[in-house]
């Protein structure tokens, strides 16, 4: 008989914590009645909280798992018993999440995912780190012989011990790079608005405004002064610009702090056919992405990225059953990467990828079509602004139109597509550039789209659909192709897709 494992004793508290939401209302009731002095608050506490405690205890005590030959067996339930057999070969992810409390207690929340189910196959809340390591070793040894020579380091709760054991590090971000990532990405507004909300709730905003402007109404007064009185004086414009600049810098500062907390110690490593990610200062996330599950990879590059010679890389993976788009996940594979290391990185992550892709431009008539669109937008904007701008309308209009021409020219120049033996590539954007690599084996559907404007000029666009592309994904949608090119490309891609079998 193979020995069975149990959850960590601390699981009971986390199981209770999982009920926190349901317990919130009864908890408040108990508190209120305790305060108002009516003597039955302890009864209320018994009625509401004790059943949850019993349920949690039953769940924790009845949870057993064991490692059989080739499968993981999880037994749950006391009255209604359930035994689940999960073959190692079917397990896609073994992820561990540790928040601060987990780390103090030396435990982790472990999630086991398989390709077929829409729900997580097993949630182990919580097991000790040694148990997690043992579990992962069993799963991966069961899957393939990747870990034959894995040197198991002494149990280290901190650092990137999970990721590094027997794996080859692809990317590790030192603190400097993490801060730079925060500065470039500019998530500060999210942090700041959250902070603002908290301050507002606490009633501190009025105090701060009061100290800054002397009286509570001056905020509105200032706004009115800037907007209402026609053309402001140069001094006022300067003050506003400086204030705005300071605001932007503060926001970037918050963003850097945010990155420091969420991305601290970011490490990406490769162990056999899996990529392992580990990051986070307070909540530590350990994730595993099997390399064959990468559906598409996108290289992002904004103006600040280019200034610092960096890029950032995301991948789409299809989790769960993949049919439901909500299951789609976007993972940041490299929050920040030096441009020079891109080729090495791509080779490590997509070994089949051919770096010598020959880019094709879109049809030359694309420039005129795109410009027509921009011109219409500019014309409308100009018409709408004619009344407030009066005499300034013509120069502003000329400026906007000039910008439209420059932007369109550069945008069309950057737009391109390529096919290699293993993937289809698409790049777009001028200031914010995206390049997406979709492996041919991951192409789901190939479509040709033809608008009436396309038809007039014998043109068309090609759409390549992959699994796991979320709302903000950069998708392969190649516009402004000549009809012949579009037909040829679609036919080639469809043939390639049909030949290969799709593996999740």
């Amino acid at each position, binding site marked *: 008989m193979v020995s069975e494992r149990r959850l960590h004793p601390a699981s009971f508290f986390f199981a209770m914590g999982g009920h926190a939401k349901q317990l919130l209302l009864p908890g408040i009731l108990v508190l209120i009645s305790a305060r108002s002095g009516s003597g039955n608050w302890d009864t209320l506490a018994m009625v509401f909280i004790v059943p949850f405690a019993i349920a949690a205890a039953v769940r924790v005590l009845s949870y057993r798992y064991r490692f059989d030959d080739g499968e993981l067996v999880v037994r749950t339930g006391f009255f209604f018993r359930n035994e689940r057999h999960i073959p190692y070969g079917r397990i896609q992810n073994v992820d561990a999440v540790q928040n601060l409390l987990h780390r103090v207690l030396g435990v982790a929340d472990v999630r086991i995912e398989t390709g077929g189910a829409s729900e997580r196959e097993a949630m182990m809340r919580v097991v000790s780190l040694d148990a997690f390591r043992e579990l992962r070793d069993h799963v991966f040894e069961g899957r393939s012989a990747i870990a034959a020579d894995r040197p198991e380091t002494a149990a280290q709760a901190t650092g990137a011990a999970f990721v590094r054991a027997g794996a080859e590090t692809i990317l590790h971000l030192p603190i400097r790079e993490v801060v730079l990532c925060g500065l470039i990405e500019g998530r500060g507004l999210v942090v700041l608005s959250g902070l603002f909300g908290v301050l507002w709730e606490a009633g501190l905003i009025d105090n701060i405004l009061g100290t800054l402007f002397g009286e509570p109404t001056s905020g509105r007064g200032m706004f009115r002064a800037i907007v209402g009185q026609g053309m402001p004086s140069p001094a006022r414009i300067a003050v506003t610009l400086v204030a705005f600049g300071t605001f932007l810098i503060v926001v970037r500062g918050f963003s850097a702090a945010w990155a420091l907390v969420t991305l601290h110690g970011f490490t990406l490593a490769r162990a056999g056919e899996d990529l392992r990610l580990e990051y986070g200062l307070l909540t530590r996330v350990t994730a595993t992405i099997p390399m064959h599950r990468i559906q598409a990879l996108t290289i992002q590059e904004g103006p600040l990225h280019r200034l610092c010679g960096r890029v950032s890389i995301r991948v789409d993976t299809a989790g769960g059953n993949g049919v439901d788009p909500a299951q789609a996940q976007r993972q940041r594979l490299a929050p920040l990467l030096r441009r020079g290391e891109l080729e090495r990185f791509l080779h490590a992550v997509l070994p089949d990828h051919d770096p010598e892709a020959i880019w094709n431009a879109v049809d030359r008539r694309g420039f005129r079509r795109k410009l027509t669109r921009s011109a219409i937008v500019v014309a409308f904007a100009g018409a709408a602004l004619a009344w407030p701008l009066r005499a300034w309308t013509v120069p502003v209009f000329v400026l906007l139109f000039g910008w439209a021409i420059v932007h369109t020219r550069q945008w069309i120049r950057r737009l391109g597509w390529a096919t290699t033996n293993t993937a289809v590539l698409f790049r777009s954007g001028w200031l914010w550039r995206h390049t997406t690599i979709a492996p041919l084996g991951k192409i789901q559907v190939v479509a040709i789209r033809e608008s009436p404007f396309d038809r007039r000029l014998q043109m068309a666009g090609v759409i390549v659909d992959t699994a796991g592309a979320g709302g903000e994904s950069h998708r392969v949608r190649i516009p402004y192709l000549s009809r012949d090119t579009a037909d040829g490309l679609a036919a080639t891609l469809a043939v390639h*897709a049909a030949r290969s079998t799709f593996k*999740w």
Partner: protein
Amino acid sequence: MGIPLLATDVPRWLLTILPLAWTAVTAALIWQTFRWPQIQYRHASYRVDAQGIEIARGVVWRSIVHVPVSRVQHTDVSQGPLQRRYGLGTLTIYTAGTAYARVNLQGLSHASALAIRDHLLPRRSDDGV
């Protein structure tokens, strides 16, 4: 006079335009009901081969969608009451894609919908995830 009369409140030009607009809208609706489906039908086609299925449709904005056989996750053949009356069926193909997670093919005879479904059904045995 407290009673607002329609004829006095509505300006005259509107009174002449309204019936014209009504006629135009009705004509457009009739055309849309009787003529538009014919045009749509003329622009809709499909092709099934060993590689997969190709569906073309759209009158103004046209599209041709290729779904390789190897990417078909599962298929539905459905029939509404009217479709049953005329022996028609709708074939729905599900893929793992995002924008084209489900692809519809309407207006097939029920028998051919079933035949296409059988053709598209995954035959591979190595369905390893």
